[in-house]
């Protein structure tokens, strides 16, 4: 009896104190590994100007197809451009687009999720549209949108945002549907709190955990899908090489110069793996209920 009685208080503790979250995150291996992988990618990307000052587009015909060596850490490509510089600069674009997609997702996902879940007025309509969008394979839909809008980085961001916002909105809506029926939310309503206050003060904190987890996955998918888009020439123009562009360019010389595709491939894989591990760890700690899914 007592053992059971102490259970809810432990739960409340877990929900209430940030320090316990951090402690449990620090003890989560998946989260730690993910954080290290993704963290180092981000760090290297941010420090890129310090690591190499070579112009990623500087041609050097004499140094074509140099394999990785002490001088050219990642080798050079068919035009003699330094791959280290290209991969690091590509990281900025790839991660930048991913980050922009995450921000758009957070803003519109929460907005649409709240309209559907809290106000319920447009719930049916919004969710049917979301279902329709989610019925297409994500990459295919992104390709369609990007092709329609014409290739540019902004296009890629818009296309990927449109693809992933319904998923985020659904997660937010589901959390809000649960939270709005909680007794303390009803109590706030009974006390005459305005909708904004109820949403911001009482409901949103309950949605943060699933939202953060969802966004970490969106980041991973966005990086991956952006690579596909730029591989197909539907993202930024080749002058600013993103990882997908690098792979597309290197593909022709796969036999002779495998490093041209393998190195950006590893970069994408590491980022996506890191983000997925990070997301898994976050999910286990922040939102144990979701553990069974996926």
């Amino acid at each position, binding site marked *: 009896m007592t053992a059971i009685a102490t259970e*809810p*208080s432990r739960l*409340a*503790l877990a*929900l*209430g104190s940030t320090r316990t979250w951090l402690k449990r995150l620090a003890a989560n291996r998946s989260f730690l590994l993910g954080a290290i992988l993704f963290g180092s990618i981000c760090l290297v990307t941010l420090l890129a100007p310090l690591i190499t000052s070579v112009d990623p587009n500087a041609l050097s015909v004499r140094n074509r197809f140099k394999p990785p060596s002490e001088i050219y850490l990642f080798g050079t490509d068919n035009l003699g451009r330094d791959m280290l510089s290209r991969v690091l600069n590509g990281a900025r674009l790839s991660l930048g687009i991913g980050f922009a997609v995450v921000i758009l997702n957070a803003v519109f996902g929460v907005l649409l999720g709240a309209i559907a879940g809290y106000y319920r007025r447009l719930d049916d309509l919004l969710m049917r549209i979301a279902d329709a969008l989610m019925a297409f394979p994500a990459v295919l839909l992104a390709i369609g949108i990007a092709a329609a809008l014409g290739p540019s980085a902004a296009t890629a961001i818009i296309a990927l945002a449109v693809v992933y916002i319904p998923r985020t909105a659904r997660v937010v809506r589901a959390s809000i549907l649960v939270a709005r029926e*909680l*007794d*303390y939310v*009803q*109590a*706030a*309503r*009974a*006390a*005459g*709190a*305005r909708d904004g*206050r109820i949403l911001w003060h*009482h409901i949103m*904190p309950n949605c943060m955990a699933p939202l953060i987890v969802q966004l970490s996955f969106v980041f991973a998918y966005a990086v991956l899908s952006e690579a596909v888009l730029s591989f197909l020439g539907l993202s930024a123009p080749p002058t600013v090489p993103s990882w997908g562009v690098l792979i597309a360019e290197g593909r022709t010389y796969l036999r002779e110069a495998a490093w041209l595709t393998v190195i950006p491939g590893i970069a994408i894989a590491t980022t996506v793996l890191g983000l997925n591990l990070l997301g898994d760890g976050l999910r286990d700690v922040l939102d144990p209920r979701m553990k069974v899914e996926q």
Partner: protein
Amino acid sequence: MTTPLLSVDGLSKEFPVAGDNWLAPKQTLRAVQSVSFELGSRQTLGLVGESGCGKSTTGRLILQLIEPTSGSVRFNGRDLATMPREELRQLRSSMQIIFQDPQASLNPRHRVEDLILEPLYAQGEKPSARLTNYAGELLDKVGLSRRHLSRFPHEFSGGQRQRIGIARAIASKPQLIVCDEAVSALDVSVQAQVINLLQDLQDELGLSYLFIGHDLAVVRHIADTMAIMYLGRIVEMGPKREFYGRPLHPYAQALLGSVPVSHPSKRHSRKRLEGEIPSPLNPPTGCHFHPRCRFARDICKQQVPQLRSISPTRQAACHFAEEIAAG
């Protein structure tokens, strides 16, 4: 006669319920069916029934937490349904609610001070030293102390949490508090403390309670008037003393007969109520109670008995209430 504090007239609520599959027709759950009563200032109405009878829904309809399908709720003579939104929002500080589960009714992320001042913040007041002091006074009033102000809900026992819930309910100086199974989840000794606290606060602050519960023995200690619900309808209503002395409706009698005895010498083979509570989705025809009623006749299957006056003070919804009253 003066206007009663709360006057409920013909209040009904229907919920659409999805069928077993998406091809099946939508069903209607008639959770509350034309419930009417009045509650005066400083009075307590005990609203009692078993699960699925609609008593909690009634409480939430009155507070306009759920929109009624039909009927009216008047608070100090003013119809809440037709009132402008902003006016209703401000009026809400005069009506509060206390929940059954003291754990679920307190936001685990907030400190006690913010929890109990929430009704004031909700009305636009800003945190201040004066409010902190007021929160301390509220805690004193409910038997806690101001040193608890900065703690989180999980640091308290169930009974203490319910006291915090009560402090929140009285913070905005309401006239009406809906107590939705407010003591049902508490241990016996704590339950008694909370009932006494509610009574003291009623005397001190001039509160009216709509006390929703399922335990007739508990409600008896706090209510002035009783209303018994069965499957969405009030089947009996009247002053406490007369009701407990001799309930008129067969269901009310059975409910009273099911309360565990207070002393082993009173064990006897009473007439137990047979059968289960029917599904509110598909209630029996006529009088909802007829399949379990030992007085049931043909008319009970066909005609819904209206809640009608049996004596100047008492009402019952039974075709044979007079006969039953006469014994």
